[in-house]
């Protein structure tokens, strides 16, 4: 499926039941043809950070990336949708709500 809605909408959809940032980034890069490569990988990750700082996602778990799944030696974050995120997602008419 090629992504046809804004990236942040899709991120909110994916985080409904909690997901690791590398899982989200990987999924988005698979779905959107114009977002391949390392630069977009970091840019999608920044989108996740923005949603978290906006109070729509919550950082629920942290672990060190030992094996280099995403970036070796850095932190991996697990995010879950907040109540406010659910309301904003509903504004954007996302399906699962």
């Amino acid at each position: 499926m090629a992504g046809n809605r804004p990236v942040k909408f899709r991120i909110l959809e994916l985080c409904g039941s909690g997901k690791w940032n590398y899982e989200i980034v990987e999924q988005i890069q698979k779905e959107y043809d114009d977002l391949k490569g390392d630069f977009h990988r970091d840019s999608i990750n920044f989108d996740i950070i923005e949603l978290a700082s906006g109070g729509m996602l919550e950082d629920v778990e942290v672990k060190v990336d030992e094996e280099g799944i995403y970036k070796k030696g850095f932190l991996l974050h697990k995010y879950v949708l907040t109540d406010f995120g659910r309301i904003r997602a509903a504004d954007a008419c996302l399906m699962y709500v």
Partner: protein
Amino acid sequence: MDLQSLKRKEHQKRVKKGFMWALFCAVLWGLWYLPGTAVWVLNPFDQMYSEVAASSGDGVALVIVAVLITALNAATVILALGVWTGVLGKFGEMKRTAKEFHPCSKWFFLASIFGGPMAILGSFIAMGFVGGAFAAVAALMYPVVGAILASKWYGEKVTKRAFIGIIVIILGGITIFGGGVLSEIGSGNVLWVGYLGGLMAATGWGIEGAIAGKGLDIAEPDVGLTLRFIGEGLIWWIIAIPMLAIAGFPMIKYAILAFEPLTLMVLIFAGITFGFCYVSWYKSFPLIGVGRGQGIGNLYGLFAVIFIFLFFGDVPSWTILVGGALCLIGSTVMFSEDTGEMESLRGD
């Protein structure tokens, strides 16, 4: 390395970057008042001013010239942000976002109405008739408008601390506006339109902030900001300029005459500083929190006064300095309260 020290490292890195972006925004925003003030004395705008003033009077001429300058400013901002989103490879995301009218583009367009014809036009009017330092410092009152709207629209509680901040900012505003008006009443020549412009800037940016946030929090800011300025560009070039041209004002003639190396350079300088101050403002929010981002961003008032002094040698009157200081203190009091995001960033 263990989890705790990695967390600390990540947090420090984010905060450092966030402060850098916010400071970058303040410097660029302050710089914008240089081309904004200089452009008034450049051709073809001073020529246009005398032509319109001869037939319709000074007040009308001021607004008409300000409209053309604001429209050209919007065009160069679109150019700067277009290059930016292009380099970042975000045109695809821009198309996807623009199509989302209900959750996104509707808000961007509404924001552009208040940001453009109200705030930016008002700023140019204030720069043209009262001066750059006044325009910059008068707009520092925008958080008051934002806070009032947030409490009316979203039922956000105004805390005691925010209330104190608002009072201090309003006192600063009275000093800035009152001081200028009083000294001009003394000389018997009050430039009311210029002061109205200062009020328009503060109100417009306050409203824009409250509206734009609704669409921007679920969009990519780079993309959202570009769309917001495209909205403003449409308002000027599809609606305002053609209507004023039909009404008989020489809009098209002078818009074409603006294609002159020096004028064009000043306009492009305005576009770059203004466009990127918005971009870096939004980049700072997720890293240090909206409150701190806005608080540091507001240092633009200080930078504007310094830059205008350095480049034009204008020493602002003491009422602007005192009022500006009060506004900065007030906004620091208001914004420094907001530590929620900082906590969640720390992740402990």
